[in-house]
């Protein structure tokens, strides 16, 4: 059964019209996983039996006339999402045999929506990384060229979409870990507004920066998925009581009259000129549809990486303290180098005598970065930038230089510091490697991001360009 042309919407139609059953569909994906995962290493755990049980149940429910928004759709979860009775490792040896006793809120919502959990995907251990190379269980490969990285830290999830091993996959974005890999793998990746989606049941990396998002093949699929995951959660005090709109409602509204901001700090030195050209092509396209391109500035951008690596590592050093190996998991000697690096940095910036100069200062500058966006959105509706300053790099190219690796986040960390939503959407290919653009909006403007992304997606139809597996 050929599943390589499916989207969530198409699969739901097919399941409703009984073209195939959920069990058949799930089996098809499991077959693909068995065939392609040994090369791509996108999955750490395949939930074969569980998925087939869920699929059987989905078919029964559909027969009874029960309608659920994801009934029978195979999805993958980044292995940082806690799943009851399914091994959850955060791609670290510390948790290599850890089986959680509860489902996180998002996992529960997806299951209640009828989704089939097909497996847990690979990532940089503890979500520390931008390439997938920090996984304790080997890196995931880019399906468009397996010598290259797919980006990280959510590395397995977008690869599972693009290589048709799942129809949707969750991720987390703390400094760009959804938007960057989405750009590298020709997928649509959403980092929602901070607090839009519950963090309960997602292993915490940096509590004030973690955003719970997802990857899909298309913009419409992405909006459908957000309809399910978004909303206030009594288990997460940082989710506001805000209503959840229908994120699919305004997708086809178009961009006429919209003001698109282009911040000069994201188009300067360090940006591959070929990527710049490709992004500018997209901007011209928007102009042709009636949008206005406005040049602007986000002046505090130059401090973003420093601010990010102080705040994030501080919170990481505290969040990883519970992994002492006393009640579950292995002891601390099993932490990888990058985790140790960040724990040390974080502990340092919080120590007595250094707190004011580093952590407190960084938090204050964070407010300035947030203000940059608030001021910008008084003049523009959305901001468009590249998802990454460079093309995907070769496996191993940046591993010996952690700082160089940190600089890959340069266009994405500001979004996390300000808490704003960002959507990465495919913009083209260079050297046969995918390139994405990032659309950033005001808090809770996810509908608008989809509205802006849709016409570009429909014009380029890049979701039709499959990798040669």
């Amino acid at each position, binding site marked *: 059964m050929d599943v390589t042309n499916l989207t969530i919407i198409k699969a739901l139609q097919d399941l409703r019209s009984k073209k195939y059953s959920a069990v058949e569909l799930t089996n098809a994906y499991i077959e693909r996983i068995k065939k392609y995962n040994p090369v791509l290493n996108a999955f750490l755990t395949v939930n074969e039996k569980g998925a087939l049980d869920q699929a059987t149940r989905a078919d029964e429910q559909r027969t009874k006339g029960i309608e659920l928004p994801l009934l029978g759709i195979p999805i993958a979860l980044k292995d940082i999402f806690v799943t009851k009775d399914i091994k959850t490792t955060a791609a670290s040896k510390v948790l290599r045999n850890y089986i*959680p006793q509860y489902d996180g809120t998002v996992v529960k919502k997806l299951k209640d929506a009828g989704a089939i959990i097909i497996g847990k995907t690979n990532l940089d251990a503890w979500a520390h990384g931008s390439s997938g190379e920090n996984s304790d269980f080997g890196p995931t490969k880019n399906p468009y060229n397996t010598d290259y990285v797919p980006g990280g830290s959510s590395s397995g999830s977008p690869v599972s979409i693009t290589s048709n091993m799942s129809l949707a996959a969750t991720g987390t974005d703390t400094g760009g870990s959804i938007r960057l890999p989405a750009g590298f793998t020709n997928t649509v990746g959403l980092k929602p507004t901070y607090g839009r989606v519950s963090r309960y049941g997602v292993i915490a990396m940096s509590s004030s920066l973690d955003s719970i998002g997802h990857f899909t093949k298309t913009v419409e699929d992405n909006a459908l998925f957000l309809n399910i995951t978004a909303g206030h959660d009594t288990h997460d005090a940082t989710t506001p009581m805000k209503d959840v709109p229908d994120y699919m409602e305004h997708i086809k509204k178009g961009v006429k009259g919209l003001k698109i901001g282009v911040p000069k700090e994201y188009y300067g030195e360090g940006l591959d000129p070929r990527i710049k050209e490709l992004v500018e092509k997209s901007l011209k396209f928007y102009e042709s549809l009636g949008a206005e391109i406005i040049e602007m500035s986000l002046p505090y951008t130059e401090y973003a990486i420093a601010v990010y690596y102080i705040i994030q590592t501080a919170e990481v050093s505290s969040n990883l303290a519970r992994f002492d190996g006393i009640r579950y998991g292995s002891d601390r000697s099993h932490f990888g180098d990058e985790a140790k690096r960040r724990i040390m940095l974080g502990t340092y910036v919080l120590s007595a005598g250094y707190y004011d100069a580093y952590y407190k200062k960084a938090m204050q500058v964070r407010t300035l970065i947030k203000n940059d966006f608030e001021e910008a959105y008084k003049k523009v509706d959305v901001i468009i930038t590249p998802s990454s300053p460079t093309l995907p790099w070769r496996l191993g190219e940046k591993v010996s230089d952690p700082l160089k690796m940190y600089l890959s986040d340069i266009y994405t960390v500001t979004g996390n510091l300000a808490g704003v939503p960002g959507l990465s959407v495919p913009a083209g290919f260079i050297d046969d490697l995918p390139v994405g653009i990032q659309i950033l909006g005001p808090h809770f403007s996810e509908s608008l991001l989809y509205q802006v992304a849709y016409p570009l997606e429909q014009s380029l139809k890049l979701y039709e360009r499959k990798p040669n597996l």
Partner: protein
Amino acid sequence: MIYTPVIGLEVHVELKTKSKMFCSCSADYFGKGPNTHTCPVCLGLPGALPVPNKTAIDWCIMIATALNCKINTFSKFDRKNYFYPDLTKGFQLSQYDLPFGEKGYMQLSNGKKVGITRVHMEEDTGKLSHIDNTSLIDFNRSGVPLVEIVTEPDFDNATDVKEYLQRLQQIVRYLDVSNADMEKGDMRLEPNISLRNEDELKNKKLPKYKVEVKNINSFRFVEKAITYEIKRQTETLESGKNPVQETRGWNESKQLTFTQRIKEEANDYRYFPEPDIPPIRLTPNQIDTIKSEMVELPDAKLERFQKEYELSHYDAEILTREIITAEYFEKTVLIGKEKNITAKQIANYIINKKPDITSLSTTDLVSTILEATQTVQMDEPKLNEIIERVLATNQKAVEDYKNGKETVIMFLVGMVMRDAKTKLDAQMVKSKIQEKLQ
């Protein structure tokens, strides 16, 4: 050289909320099977998040108000990072620089004002037990709400400390926010004790060291432990040495303090604001609402009882020692009013007879008092007859009375009452006898 004690107190009060501080597990853990009141949050499992208990915060603000603190309208939780097996997350959720209440005071009976530095919220840890070479951890207590109350180092003697603790216990029991039972661990005390020399006293300087004493589990031992420690430190200073800055434990059976942990420098807890809990912003309206839900506090009730019921300080203090007694008394007074029983009568009865107020209803109490004081009306001629007879058969007493021994009249009253065989109004009988003996 005269040394003056300098004592500050840290008290932890465990709140008797239904659920824990950051999760909905039951907080009523005492005596329950180990690890039966747990969930991912209080176990600090990967992915769990804290959600604050509003009742606990309201109650903390009540305690702070009762201690005359300033309530911060902007407050937050902070992470106190340290490692210990009973601390599931590797950090404790507490408050650092913006506690709910600060800069209050408590006035003692001798007029001394003890400064309250801060009143803040934090979560309790699990409980460790050690058997042979094994250590077991019970997390039922992990996450239970604690209010920490810290005083300025204003105490200079153990008696004041004991009074402070008794008043504090009374306040939280009045507010019904804690059982404050030292034996059960829902009120824990850590005094910091040091001695000032004359020079430091004159210049209002604090000594360069302080000794923290832990494990004092009852009021009985508070004074003893402090007295012992003062004596020990005095001996050390007099021998020319400085007492070591350390934590000592109180040994109940040996009645002494012993070294537990040497504190050379303070732990670096790397406090930072808890990102998982948005800061708490209280409006003056909200603070007023919380205050309006507070019961009348012991001091206020004591004063009011003296005024309103015309009771002595002594009597009013006994009646207001526990709120249950005070409320019982006032209810009885209301009922008694209709039966012409005075507040003083009820007070006397409760104080002297000490009835079991949990089993004796207020209406029954009034009836009991009525019976005890009931006087029966007697036929006037019949009464006169009895009086005449008593006076006739007690000539010596009558003569003694006429010769100035006034107290004899009560004997005669008693004789009349005995013969009458009913409860007569003693005053009335006395007056009649006096009339006749005129």
